């Protein structure tokens, strides 16, 4: 099927479909929160949020023109550019990955830093995902080759917890609320916390912009009005997150996102809240750093490193205009 990839699905331009790469993950919380707070409606937009938990096919659907935008990790825009697709981040929600490298309590004695990764089983959520590349980056930065440890797909959520629990992995990278649950139950300890700027700088030696709203370049060009409205809504939510406590945020979310354990959910929001930048703007040094990481490990980006034009992968134009008064 040769859907026009430029303009997204047909219909009323204010009917917008956004796909979220795991709507219940705290790192993508702004999407649902915006809807809950009514900011989309406020802008005159009729937004449908779709959930795409299984991995990278959200971007496929964006490229295929099935959805208008995706709330996902910024690094996909670079990956897709290496395959000749122009996708651009219009609202950058966070400058740090929001990921945490946790160590199972059994292995906690042996693994004190990434230098101890040698010979260990390290979990990531999915092969080819940011957690995969970041793990490789952390290892090689500390002098451990990617062949010297075993990378294990451990998924997210319960399977990840079970994997830590029964020794399927020694350490692994994941996000909240998995981290909160693991730490809370004493099954694991935080090794590297990339939910804050300091932590990220310490771990990676720079920023690693992550959660973002990205859209097809052509669509952005043709529908500046709608994109601006979306940016307005998201930036307003980011501002809301900055100005409210975890309790207040959680209260605005649908009750079942807490999964029956409200305290844990609060802790997760509280711990992760700091990753959101409040402005929706990309910091250029962060983008460069992402390219740096991908260029070393990503099979296609590796080869096309020099051809990547970072300026096409994000824009601050809309966020600039959207700053709440």
């Amino acid at each position, binding site marked *: *099927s040769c*859907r026009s990839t430029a303009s997204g699905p047909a219909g009323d331009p204010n009917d917008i*479909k956004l*796909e979220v790469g*795991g*709507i*219940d*993950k705290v790192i993508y919380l702004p999407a649902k929160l915006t809807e809950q707070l009514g900011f989309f409606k406020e802008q005159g937009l009729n937004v*449908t*949020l*779709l*959930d*795409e*938990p*299984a991995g990278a*096919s*959200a971007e*496929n*659907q964006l490229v*295929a023109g*099935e*959805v208008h935008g995706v709330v996902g990790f910024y690094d996909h825009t670079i990956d897709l550019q290496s395959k000749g697709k122009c996708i651009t981040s219009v609202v950058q929600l966070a400058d740090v990955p929001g990921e945490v490298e946790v160590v199972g309590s059994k292995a906690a004695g042996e693994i004190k830093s990434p230098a101890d990764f040698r010979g260990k089983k390290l979990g990531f959520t999915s092969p080819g995902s940011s957690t995969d590349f970041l793990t490789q980056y952390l290892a090689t930065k500390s002098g451990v080759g990617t062949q010297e440890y075993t990378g294990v797909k451990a998924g*997210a*959520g*319960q399977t990840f*917890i*079970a994997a830590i629990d029964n020794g399927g992995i020694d350490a692994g990278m994941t996000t909240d*609320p998995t981290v909160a*649950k693991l730490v809370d*139950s004493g099954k694991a300890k935080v090794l590297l916390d990339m939910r804050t700027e300091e932590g990220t700088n310490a771990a990676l030696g720079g920023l690693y912009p992550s959660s973002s709203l990205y859209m097809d370049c052509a669509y952005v060009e043709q529908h500046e009005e709608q994109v601006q409205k979306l940016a307005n809504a998201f930036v307003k939510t980011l501002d809301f997150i900055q100005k409210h406590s975890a309790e207040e945020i959680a209260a605005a979310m*649908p*009750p*079942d*996102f*807490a*999964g*029956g*354990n409200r305290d*844990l*959910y609060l802790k997760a929001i509280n711990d992760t809240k700091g990753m959101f930048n409040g402005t929706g703007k990309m910091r250029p040094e962060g983008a460069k750093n992402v390219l740096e990481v991908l260029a070393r490990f990503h099979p296609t980006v590796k080869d096309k490193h020099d051809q990547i034009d970072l300026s096409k992968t994000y824009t601050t134009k809309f966020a600039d205009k959207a700053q709440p008064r």
Partner: protein
Amino acid sequence: MVRSAEAARRRRRVKVWGTRLALVVVWLVSWELTATYLIDPFFYSKPSAVGVRLVEWFTAGTSQGSIWEQILVTLQESVSGFAVGSLAGIVLGILLGRSPVLSDICAPFIKAANAVPRIVLASLFVIWFGLGLTSKIATAFILVFFAVFFNAFQGAREVDRNLIDNARILGANRLQILGTIVVPSAMSWILASLHAAFGFALIGAVVGEFTGADKGLGLLINRAQGTYDAAGIYAGMIVITVIALAAEWLLTALEDRLLKWRPAMSKTEIQI
């Protein structure tokens, strides 16, 4: 005789339902007890929690809206996939089963297609058919199709040659042989596959929803997975199971109608 047979049947039904009920109760109680005292309910939940979640869903609704809406969406996807898939499976299975040349040529392709992992297919379908109903129906279709196809195929090959010969002699053309001999003969094969197939259709719909959706029971379960809500996972599975059993009940009624010409199993027939 009629009356006493009736009574015997009633007695047997009571026994069967009693045993079933007892099994369910034993299972629930032991689950509740182990989850309370032995294992971690974080992973395994427990019946009481699942019950609470179910009540909540049916009274207060879910975060995606009314539970009935989710059921309806999933049902719509799986019923369509089931209908189209089983029809295609029956038709193609019988055609290929009756045509050795065609089956020799096509068989390897169909067998190859059958080995393609459905979750990979599900994400391809989303690309091909979009995020709407169609991609879920396609996933359900593909699961149902193969289950039915292989049985219809073999069923069509197992037809008693005498019966076909007799029909030919009596003046039946190919279409009539198909309709009056091959299809009735293969019916028990087809029906056997349909029993498994509706379950597959549900699975297909759920897999499709996992790949990308905004409504449906699959998404509900997925949400529960994402939020460590073991009770929610099990509650979703129970809802799906109940749907499957309802469909099964309908199917059995259909089967009884279609196969009413069969001799009933005799009382003294050997039971092993």
